[in-house]
């Protein structure tokens, strides 16, 4: 436990803050379609041109090779400046790029990495299937080898941004005799290839970033396989990106600001004219105090993860603990918003904030990217060492 004092870090923070202050887009991010893609890729290009793209990527691949502390400073300032989330560029910059850097061929790297950094190409992820959600290893999308090609048939689901993506990290079963973790390959799929169709799935909050992707005899050249054939499971599992615990900073700061917003609401006298404010109700105050303590704790847990990673090369499985804490907390924070606002919380536009949308969106954290149940298994088995 100690505060890391460094004038170099302070200078870096000042520089980041100044640049973000002048460059963070002022216009609203469009919620869908080409306009959304344009916005996200343009913001990536802006960062790229100013030398802020690929913060965690090695310098030899065009990245900035920042230290973990520098990344953390960037993420903090980024969130505090209200800079937009990666959006359509998220998979490319934090997952596909790092995977290619670690496992790709020279040709794959040379072709894709510059396009990702400059915001030229958008990636999506094709891992989950209708029959293989929590059980990713149960995937059944087939890839048959036909000469120099893989011929893909099947479907993927919960693929964000598939509608606007150029490429997809696609997991397919290349060995038809195999089952579970064996015989899976990690392939770069061109989303413009013939035989691909994309169906948006409306989420319960009314957003349609999720899609289902169908593959009907889609032909992918064999040189698009990353790593080796039938080695895809290891590649999908070992590549956690380079962010080393800093990725939750944005969520944590957003949640913390939301609790502050609730506190402001609770301190305002209601329209009944009695002069009483919700916070005068000790049960409201108690609940807000718990939430505020918990968002502070989320910040501290993020800091603890990063601290551990300062002293170890490979991030430990404790990341699942922070993820579980976050997803349970997020839902309670937004549920409190609905309760606190009473009948007004049922309306989708309250003084410019769509609380119901934010509340409903918060349900995704306990489901997507591993349900809370899967995370608890993981914590029990990998962190605590309980038998499988």
């Amino acid at each position, binding site marked *: 436990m100690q505060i890391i004092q460094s004038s170099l870090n302070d200078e870096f923070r000042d520089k980041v803050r100044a640049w973000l202050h002048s460059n963070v887009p002022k216009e609203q991010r469009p919620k869908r379609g080409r306009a959304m893609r344009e916005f996200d890729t343009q913001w990536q290009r802006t960062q790229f041109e100013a030398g802020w793209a690929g913060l965690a990527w090695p310098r030899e691949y065009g990245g900035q090779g920042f230290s973990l502390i520098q990344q953390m400073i960037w993420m903090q300032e980024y969130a505090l400046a209200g800079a937009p989330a990666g959006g359509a560029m998220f998979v490319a910059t934090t997952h596909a790029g790092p995977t290619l850097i670690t496992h790709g061929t020279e040709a794959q790297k040379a072709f894709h990495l510059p396009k990702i950094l400059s915001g030229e190409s958008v990636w999506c992820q094709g891992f989950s299937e209708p029959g293989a959600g929590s059980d990713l290893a149960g995937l059944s999308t087939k890839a048959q080898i036909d000469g120099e090609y893989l011929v893909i048939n099947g479907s993927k689901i*919960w693929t964000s941004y598939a509608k606007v993506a150029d490429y997809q990290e696609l997991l397919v079963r290349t060995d038809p005799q195999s089952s579970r973790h064996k015989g899976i390959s990690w392939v770069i799929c061109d989303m413009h290839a013939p035989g691909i169709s994309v169906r948006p799935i409306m989420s319960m909050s009314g957003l349609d970033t999720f899609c289902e992707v169908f593959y009907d005899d889609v032909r992918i050249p064999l040189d698009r396989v990353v790593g080796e054939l039938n080695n895809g499971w290891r590649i999908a599992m070992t590549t956690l990106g380079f962010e080393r615990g800093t990725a939750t900073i944005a969520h944590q700061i957003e949640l913390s600001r939301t609790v502050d917003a609730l506190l402001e609401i609770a301190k305002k006298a209601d329209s009944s004219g009695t002069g009483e404010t919700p916070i005068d109700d000790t049960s409201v105050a108690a609940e807000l105090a718990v939430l505020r303590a918990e968002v502070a704790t989320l910040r501290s847990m993020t800091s603890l993860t990063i601290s551990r990673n300062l002293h170890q090369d490979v991030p430990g499985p404790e990341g699942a603990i922070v993820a579980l804490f976050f997803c349970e907390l997020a839902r309670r924070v937004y549920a409190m918003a609905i309760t606190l606002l009473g009948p007004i919380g049922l309306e989708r536009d309250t003084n410019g904030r769509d609380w119901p949308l934010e509340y409903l969106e918060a349900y995704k954290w306990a489901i997507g990217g591993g349900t809370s149940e899967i995370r608890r298994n993981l914590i029990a088995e990998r962190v605590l060492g309980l038998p499988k």
Partner: protein
Amino acid sequence: MIIDLSPTEDQAMIRTSVADLLDSVLPLDRLLKDHNHLASAELSSWSSFADQGLFGLAIDTESGGTGYSIAEQVVVCNEFGRHLVSPITMATMLATQLAVRAGLTDVVRSLIGGDKRAAFANPVANIDYNAGGTAEVQVIDGTGADYIILIDEERALLFNGNACEFLRSVPAIDETINIDRLGLPLDQTLVHSKDDLSTCRHHTLMLAAYLLGMAEVTRNMAVDYARIREQFGQPIGKFQAVKHICADMAVRAEAALAQTFYAATLASVDHPNGDSEAASARLIASRAALDNARANIQVHGGMGFSAECTAHFFLKRAHIITALNAAPLAAQSKILADLEPLS
């Protein structure tokens, strides 16, 4: 006091016939298709609801009703909740009851007969009834309603729909219902009943029964899905984590059922503990409906989060019904009031 909570023959018959009707005219998957704009599905079946006598179920036969009690009304509202029927049905039942007490025979006849309908008003801030003037409210599926009913824990007001001022429509958390902001003219009430506690109590119990229905259906949906959805080579219902989520759903639904039916039985004989028991029923049923809706989404995983499965409608509707004329502090003091020993 010995209470038999099993359905009487009449109650069982009423349940079956209402359930059959709703299964055929208001199947749940209607909500996936057109979002039930302005309660269109309910309105096109309005006359068949009237034909079954639903709007005068707890009204004396002399007043043109069927002569049953709140117990039977609770059975019907329980089915409404299972089918996510628009709350205008319950509003119309309560409007009939208010009109009977006020002796408005024409109004009673038109409501029971299915010619007119009512909708619930939900205050957006505390209303000062002595100050008069206009009170701003949300109205649920109230566009075109003939009457607007405003109920809190101690009074019930009935307004003519066309005496109310339309302010604006607002998009709601639940896309299958419609919320309008209206101004209610507090000095132009059709009925202003300050001590008709039985109507208030019935309102509380009907909402509890509706929420109970939601808690039951979500439990059933989760169990059915857990039986068929396979992951890791077996139905997810074989995993203890999923089993225990479902078991907790069963406990919540059973608790809401027992307390709602118990309170309704007491209310049917105007027992002095009726208010407290009804408030307890609404509290328990609200928590059951919300928590089961959440658990059902979780059991359904990605499908539960998508709009292509009906799971999310139960979460949204639970928020609407839980917030409807909710007065948590008044409910609390009713629950905490001194009670008569029950035996």
